[in-house]
């Protein structure tokens, strides 16, 4: 997992360095980021909490609570994706399309690349959720859950990094 995370870090590091390079160009135009992004930021931070709590209840073998929390986390993840989508439609309605300026194009690309990674996390959540039901013999092996949790915290942190980056660089 840590290896995959290292790879993903390089991927986004390349994006942000592209952003810095392009930003210095004279034709670069800044615009106001949709307020919706604040909302989704809050959502994803909360989801990290619920993720954390669900790992804890898994380790305490409280399977019912674990299942609920994992569902909540996944739903919050979906909510985050919707929030980002709404943010995009807000940008779009202001005429900020992908062709409008490189600044917009980069925001679109970086944010949607991040959304894909969150989507991967949501799918992983559903998988371990389904497993919790399928298994008749109870296994309390925490490794898969922990791996997913690590990934979840990572995409959360990644978004916070990206958002702060977008805000600061203006």
């Amino acid at each position, binding site marked *: 997992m840590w*290896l995959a995370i290292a790879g993903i870090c390089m991927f986004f590091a*390349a994006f942000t360095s592209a952003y810095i390079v392009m930003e210095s160009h004279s*034709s670069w135009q800044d615009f106001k980021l949709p307020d919706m992004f604040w909302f989704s930021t809050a959502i994803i931070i909360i989801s990290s909490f619920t993720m954390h709590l669900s790992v804890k209840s898994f380790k305490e073998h409280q399977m019912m609570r674990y299942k609920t929390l994992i569902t909540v986390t996944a739903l919050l993840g979906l909510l985050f994706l919707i929030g980002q989508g709404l943010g995009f439609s807000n940008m779009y309605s202001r005429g900020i399309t992908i062709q409008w300026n490189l600044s917009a194009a980069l925001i679109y690309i970086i944010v949607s690349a991040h959304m894909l990674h969150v989507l991967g996390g949501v799918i992983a959540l559903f998988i371990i959720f389904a497993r919790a039901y399928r298994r008749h013999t109870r296994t309390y092996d925490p490794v898969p859950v922990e791996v997913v949790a690590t990934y979840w915290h990572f995409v959360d942190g990644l978004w916070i990094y990206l958002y702060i980056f977008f805000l600061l660089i203006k």
Partner: protein
Amino acid sequence: MSNEMNNPHQEITHPQAVAIPVPTGHETQVAEGHGIHHHEPFITKYIFSQDHKMISKQFLITGIIWATIGGFFSVLFRLQLGFPNDHFMWLHTIFGNWAPNGQFTPEAYYGLVTMHGTIMLFFVLTAGMSGTFANLLIPLQLGARDMASPFMNMLSYWIFFIASVVMFSSLFVSTGPFSGGWTAYPPLSALKDASPGSGTGGDLWLIAVLLFFISQIFAGINYISTILNMRTKGMSMSRMPLTIWGLLVTAILGLLSFPVVITGLVLLFFDKHLGTSFYLNSIYISGHALPNVGGSPILYQHLFWFMGHPEVYIVILPAMGIASEVIAINCRKPIFGYRGMVTAFFAICILAFLVWAHHMFVTGMNPYLGAFFVLLTLLIAVPSAIKVFNWIGTMWKGNIHLSVPCLFVIGFVSAFISGGLTGIWMANSAIDLDIHDTYFIIAHFHLVMGVASILGMCAGVYHWYPKMFGRKMNNTLGYIHFWITLVGAYLIFWPMHYEGLAGMPRRYYDYAAWHTFAPFEGVNTFISVVAIVVFIAQILFLFNFFYSIFKGRKETDPNPWKANTLEWTTPIHPGHGNWIGEIPEVYRWPYDYSKNGIDFIPQNVPLGPEEEIEVAKENQPQPV
């Protein structure tokens, strides 16, 4: 991890280091044991196999097929360079529109050059090389029953396979394959109308290369986690054979550099199809200004070469590992400077990420910035030289057996030196400004990377062939193959240095318009003729390889090279799971050759009483 496991039917548990959990398949498919191997259906045994040895053979054979195609393409474009005034009607018969009057069109020529570069670098020397030897050797030499995630391993091969199919299909589109060079610089690659090859051919190229990078990231994650987590008992990192060290550093380089180029290629895709202008700025095409402003093609170069330079080491490091192993075995001597070798690997790994801009000295970069890259580039010659010194040190006063693999390794060292020395020239930006994009560059990288790692790969194939197929390749054919290849390679690439110093640019279709280059006409013809001969010599290898799979002499000795590493402790035809019974335990490093008068002591032999005393002495402060 799975080392204490003695029941081969049990599923191999994967360590937590594996990426996003793989939904199905892995849990349900249980690794087959050796005894019942022949019961396995054809599909799971030969096609969708999860056995690392089979995946290794798949990578090797796919790589060989690509090498044949890529090599053949080079012969074709050499025909144009060597015989610019001749018309070969048979070309028209075979290639139709590519060669309307028996001569390749400029578009077809550039398509051939681009495909040659892409295929050789990515499909043969990256996927073919790492795919073959990492899959074969990591579990076998470390004492693991399979990779950390056999399923992801299979996935990486099949994604590579799809990439291959896409790339292959691009040869048949009517506008021709992509023709903008293996580096695919924009704006040429970002504008559909820039050249015929930039249309559909360019799209297919982009998809194929993206898939290829994804497959190599999967593969690399798997290699690293296997090396870190699945070594048998006693196999500490410092007892790993150098092959494994090479493959480890290769995988790290890939994992950290491929995502960056994926970013670059994604942006390229957006520029091409979604109207963005990351790489485009004020361009005129057929008299009209394009609306795209604000981008910078230099950005692409940075993103590309950030992968591009590590990539060249990704290509050579496995060969370095193979060379170290084969040379120690064939000189019956411990490898000289094991620790130095490992340190050099890591020095190369770090420096490889810090020198990319030496490919961009002519982009108008600030000369002060350039100076840093000059310095760092010169520094990378140091670990490279350490390795060369250590190989020669190993051969020095060794009891050299000039077996076929050993000859190939000596050829590898020779080519690496010849090409590496010119690297030091080009590293100086003042010199490079003059020779950049000339045949000097072609000579440099073909010797240091192309020839060297192909020779290393051949050494590996000849050396591990008995392990892969349980049969031997023919030695005489091997010797002939070696000598023609080595001598031919020098005859092809040596003269190119002179052409380059005279300023002859690379990637030109025809040099007739320049008086300066007229004296090289004969040289060009000569190079092309040698290229054809060398290509034919490779057919000997192809024949030897495929014929021996079915009809080669059966191997009867489980350890034909009298080597120390663990792969030779498996049966001649190892099943899925590699060892019958328990996995051997390791007690020593892999290079105990001619120690205390004993020819070789495999790694799984416990220390003798004298050795115990020696070790105790060495570890005096903290006795074992």
